């Protein structure tokens, strides 16, 4: 077997909308293929993703093949297969797990089951093929903020593999709230990215909107449903919308949504002296939020890590490969005789150990 840092892992993630496969070598991303609903739908003008299409079955084979081809690694040189087992949509997870097991069995490789949220946490540690890792001397505990369509969590990282969820959403996730706000403004779905573009040109102080959980930050709870309701009413009142209104509405919504997130994060900083701040998930692609978080990290003299590319922010398999690398190092993998134990865990929590 190759030395530690050259472990080659083929990883698969089918936790929800995206069908993803990647090949990694240690923390180096050799290929990262994502079959995305979003890009497909953008072409057709913001149609809702369809579950029929979300059936990963037809495209998983192609995605894996492409990931292997782009990585220029021969399948026989792969050391292990990694796969997301949760959290996510049961029928979607199932497809990835089945495929991973097929591969692991056919090529007699160990299997590494991974929690999707851990993938987002550790996505900040990935580096590209051309660059050497710039990350050295990680300091713990680190505070990880994972914000995506499916997750909004603050997680204390005692060390890699040892986590504690400190705060999570009580209703909508941040990514979902941004997508829904975009939808209300007629910007299609998923529209978080377009909302950001619109917001950039707008004035965030045009409309009064409530900052969620104001004064109750010590509860360590994210909540976006109240803001969403207020925004719905505001948008209805402002109709018909025009370009300028849309920009100002987008800016106002984003501002309050982010203020809320930042206030909770600050509160957590006060209570848990974290040494580093890691920010992963689809919302980590948002420049405005990154700017605000970088600012508070700077005030605290803290290092902030974010994934090196947008592709590592949204759901992807390379981050699963990174997590698998650390598990592989700790000898946490399954061999053929344990394969039949592996199952999907739709509500997996990152601070609970996987059963196998």
């Amino acid at each position, binding site marked *: 077997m190759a030395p530690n840092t050259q472990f080659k892992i083929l990883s698969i993630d089918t936790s*929800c909308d995206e069908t993803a496969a990647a090949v990694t070598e240690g923390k180096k991303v050799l290929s990262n293929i994502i079959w995305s609903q979003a890009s497909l739908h953008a072409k057709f003008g913001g*149609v*809702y*993703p*369809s*579950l*029929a299409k979300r*059936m990963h079955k037809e495209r998983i084979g192609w995605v894996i093949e492409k990931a292997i081809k782009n990585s220029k690694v021969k399948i026989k040189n792969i050391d292990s297969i990694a796969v997301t087992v949760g*959290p*996510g*949509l*049961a*029928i979607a997870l199932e497809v990835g797990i089945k495929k991973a097991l097929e591969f692991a069995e056919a090529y007699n490789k160990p299997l590494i089951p991974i929690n999707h949220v851990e993938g987002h946490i550790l996505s900040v540690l990935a580096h590209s093929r051309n660059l050497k890792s710039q990350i050295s001397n990680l300091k713990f505990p680190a505070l990880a903020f994972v914000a995506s*369509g*499916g997750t909004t969590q603050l997680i204390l990282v005692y060390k890699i593999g040892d986590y504690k969820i400190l705060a*999570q*959403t*009580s*209703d*909508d*996730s941040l*990514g*979902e709230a941004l997508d*829904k706000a975009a*939808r*209300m403004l007629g910007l299609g*779905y998923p529209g978080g990215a377009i909302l950001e573009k619109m917001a950039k040109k707008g004035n965030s102080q045009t409309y009064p909107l409530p900052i969620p959980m104001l004064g109750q930050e010590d509860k360590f709870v994210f909540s976006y*449903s109240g803001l*969403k*309701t*207020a*925004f*719905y*009413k505001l948008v209805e009142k402002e109709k018909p919308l025009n370009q300028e209104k849309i920009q100002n509405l987008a800016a106002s919504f984003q501002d309050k949504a982010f203020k809320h997130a930042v206030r909770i994060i600050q509160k957590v900083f006060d209570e848990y002296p974290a040494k580093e701040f890691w920010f992963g998930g689809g919302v980590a692609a948002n420049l405005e939020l990154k700017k605000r978080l970088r600012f508070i990290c700077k005030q605290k003299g803290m290092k902030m890590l974010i994934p090196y590319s947008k592709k590592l922010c949204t759901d992807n398999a390379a981050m699963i490969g990174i997590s698998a690398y650390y598990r592989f190092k700790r000898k946490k993998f399954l061999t053929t005789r344990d394969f039949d134990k592996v199952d999907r865990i*739709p*509500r997996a929590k990152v601070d609970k150990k996987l059963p196998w």
Partner: protein
Amino acid sequence: MNIKKIKNIKVEEVVDILKSGGLVIMPTETLYGAFVDATNPRAVQKIIKYKNRPFGKPYSVAVENKKMAENYVELNETAKKLYRTFLPGPVTVVSKGLHKVAPGVESENGTLGIRIPNHKLVLSVINSLDKPITATSANASYQKRPYKISDILDNISNTQKSLIDLVVDAGELPNNEPSTVIDTTLDDPIILRQGDVKLKNKVEILSKSEENTKNIAKELWQKYEKYHGKRAIVFALVGPMGSGKTIFTKGLGLAMGVKDDIVSPTYNLEEDYDEGKLHHIDAWRMSSDSELTDLGFAQKISNKNVVAIEWADRVINEIRTYDEEAVIIWVKIRYAKRQNERWLSWGAT
């Protein structure tokens, strides 16, 4: 299988087939129905096989009049009132059964749904047979509502076709809703399925806060809890963005003693709490009814699960497929004047 135009049909011919345990497809004032002698165990086995639904799912029966009904069920005051007002007509009244029909017709709890179809041929057949006949729609379970013969024959297997002895073809029927099903065995009559006949049971309540909304959910749960484990219970939630569908589900979870945190399932499409004690689905991102099918909705219904579906209006057809089997409560939430106020209403529509 013999297909005959209705104008060429003689009542005796149908009666003879039913007497010998045969299965006949005939039009009613709602849909095409599949009929067998409800007192003949062999015939009932045949219809169970034809419908392809598991033993234990009850069948309604058609009778000629109230007098005949009283030989098979116990009619309470509520039931009598419904008979007077609506029958014959597109209403099925569920009462306590007297166990005089073949096994598999009454529900597991011994209740029996009775209907008096407002259709000349069907009534003449029952009169001549002098026995109740099963009154179930002629489609196989989970298939299209049968308004014309091809709706039926195009969607069944050859085995199923071989079970049919006679088809009475009356052309395409007006697209009426199936009968409204009302259960009178409880203190308040409850509508199990809404057809064209509507009872005035719509209530609208003003919720003044999230807490209020949760409490209303709790009260609704207590109202329908008696069906828990006997039928699937579906809370079909309808209301605009931010109106409180997730809040309602949180209240439902509280009332049911669910321990997991209840959150919006928009992204994942589905969350299962406490290992499936409560299923929470969000149809906002769904573009067609088939997506709910793909999530294994049929399985949840047959497992008698409790399901809350947000944006249920987006998948209304799939949900309605089960309105004979499941208790489906449509909960509508709309914005009221003040910021935190909402109007909540519910019913079987």
